[in-house]
């Protein structure tokens, strides 16, 4: 090969081709998705195909919802602990894998579900289960308690789990006066329970992380991905 301009152009355009085709095009196609209502309403106007123009229902809440408060801070803990390397946050469509059958979400997730996330954590590994709908599976105080015990040592509540313990997110301290209301309640005879006179309380980071986990919920429909009963 002696034609050097051709070599240079080829090297340049090979990558420019996929950069344009994959990155720029997907940026144009889905980079401007916005929040929307759960379903759309037909108007009297017709589009070029003769179909009614669809608009957002007035007064309905918009989805996906903005993440708030402690849960937002918890996401930083999720990132700094590298949870993504064993847990995905994406539900595949029904009959492609068993995501929905396993209860990992009531519907498949779509591009719009992720538009408000500054860092998207789809993940590519399921050493542990998918977490896109964790907050739907474990809710309220019971869900909070379960997650704290599970983080402190997963084998307290999940026998046979290979998840590492995150005990360093908890303080084990001597009970002075009244036991803390935040202290973890261990199952009776648990080998992981602290000695008598001691209690395990979550640090601020643990609380934030659990709030984040509980906030992961697909409890809304989108026009392109309705929850089917």
């Amino acid at each position, binding site marked *: *090969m*002696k034609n*050097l301009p051709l*070599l240079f152009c080829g*090297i*340049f355009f*090979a*990558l420019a*081709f*996929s*950069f344009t*085709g*994959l*990155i720029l095009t*997907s*940026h144009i*196609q*889905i*980079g401007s998705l916005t929040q929307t209502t759960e379903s759309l309403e037909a108007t009297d106007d017709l589009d070029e195909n003769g179909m009614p123009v669809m608009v957002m229902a007035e007064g309905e809440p918009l989805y996906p919802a903005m993440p708030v408060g402690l849960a937002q801070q918890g996401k930083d803990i*999720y990132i*700094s*602990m*590298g*949870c*993504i*390397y*064993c847990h995905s946050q*994406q539900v*595949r*469509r029904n009959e*492609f*894998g*068993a995501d929905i*059958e*396993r209860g990992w979400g009531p519907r*498949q*997730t*779509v*591009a719009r579900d*992720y*538009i*408000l*996330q500054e*860092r*998207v954590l*789809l993940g*590519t*590994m*399921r*050493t*542990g289960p998918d977490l896109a709908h964790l907050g739907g599976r474990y809710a309220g105080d019971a869900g909070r308690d379960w997650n704290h015990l599970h983080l402190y040592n997963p084998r307290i509540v999940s*026998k*046979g*789990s*290979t*998840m*590492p*313990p995150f*005990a*360093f997110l908890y303080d084990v301290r001597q009970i002075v006066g009244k036991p803390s209301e935040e202290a973890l309640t261990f199952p009776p005879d648990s080998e992981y329970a602290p000695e008598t006179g001691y209690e395990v309380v979550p640090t601020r980071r643990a609380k934030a992380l659990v709030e984040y986990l509980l906030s992961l919920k697909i409890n809304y429909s989108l026009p392109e991905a309705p929850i089917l009963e």
Partner: protein
Amino acid sequence: MSADQKQGPYSSNSEAVRLELSQIDASIRSAALFFVISAITWLLIGTVFALLVAVKAHQPNFASTFEFLTFGRVRSAHLNAMALGWASNIIFAVGLWIMARLCRAPIIHKGILFIAGVFWNIGLTVGIFGILRGDITSVEWLEIPKYATPLLAISYALIGVWGVMAFRFRKGDHVYVSQWYILAALFWFPWLYVVAQVMIIWLPARGVVQSVTNWWFAHNVLGLWFTPMALATAYYLIPKVLGRPIYSYYLSVLGFWALAIFYNWAGIHHLIGGPIPVWLISAGIVASVMMVIPVVVVGINHHMSVVGLHKEVWRSPTLRFVVFGAISYTLVSLIGSAMALRTVSEITHFTHFTVGHAHHGVYAFFTMIMFGGVYYMMPRLLKREWPSSFLIKLHFWACALGITIMVVALQVGGWIQGLEMNNAEIPFLEVVQNTIPWLKARSVSGLFLTMGHIAFAANFFWMLFVAGAVRAKQGPTLLGSNEGGAVQ
């Protein structure tokens, strides 16, 4: 073919040619040595991380009291130490050296190259510490925190430019296939890295555009950075050691352009079933399957170049590793194309199968070829021979066995894991439990690889520092039978 017969890189007996090559070697000696030493140091560090991670995968309580040793961080420290520490440093050493030799252009201003190399490794050290202390980004293949990446990018620019400079001031008309690969990779890598950094970390794109960019980048680190460099090395070393040209010039051209066109679309297969437009996934699958063309073409070309000379291949430390890597390239790529099919991905996606596949590519293919490159390059840079043929053999067998055990264990275990995960009647914890024997086999494979790496490092530093122990020899250190070389 005729062009290569005249101008290919195969060995020459001409004194003038040897003298010129010797001068080029001298010009890059200090920088290349620095890169090799860095690469081997990172290889050992990355191995320690790897062992920790492997054991943690089946003994989750192991070393779990310390936050900085939690699985997600050590795993990422391992990946970055290997990808940017071992792989990229060895690319800088072997790739630039081959480029300079083929261009017949000594490296000028080698001091800048050396300093840039120092800063690359400082940036990487800061980055790995950052990952361990919790500043990890959790973006796959881009875990290094924001404060270290600009240093890496600038250092890279100052290193990569020497390859381009050598090319600019090359002598002679002919451009050999290795030069295309190296030139292209030196140009592609910074483009990928900067785009990915900007669109994911600095000015995050909206939603899953980040994920698309992420896998466009991550797969191309393998496809457009490691792969071309390893192929360039194989294309350079096979004719050099065997003393006869590459089988077909036209197949090299076809292989190069098919790789350039198809590989960079393939990464989207990591998102099959994911929340991105389906046409993007289809494009990724088509490109992944089309990769069969360059892979088969390169495979035929390499095979035909060594056919009939198997004894020589086996006797040469360099070619024993290179041929192992070249065969692995064919295997891993064909498996990769199959994994991109939707029906296969449905099973292998999200499982250890993918981890096995990644090691098949980066280790059995790329790393083994680069080991071969180091075995060839060092005697020419240092004008000394490798002190121990036993350590070379130990290195080869430990690594060849180790990586084979790892790939088989993770892929068989991963396949079972995928089948079970897709059957909702099997409880998830049972799926987890059933992976444990395979993960233990992976830890065993890690012990083999560690043994190989220690043998390699010992031989290398022995050659480097204990000059007195390396007696002048009649000829190069060869393996196996005694003919033609002084083997201990």
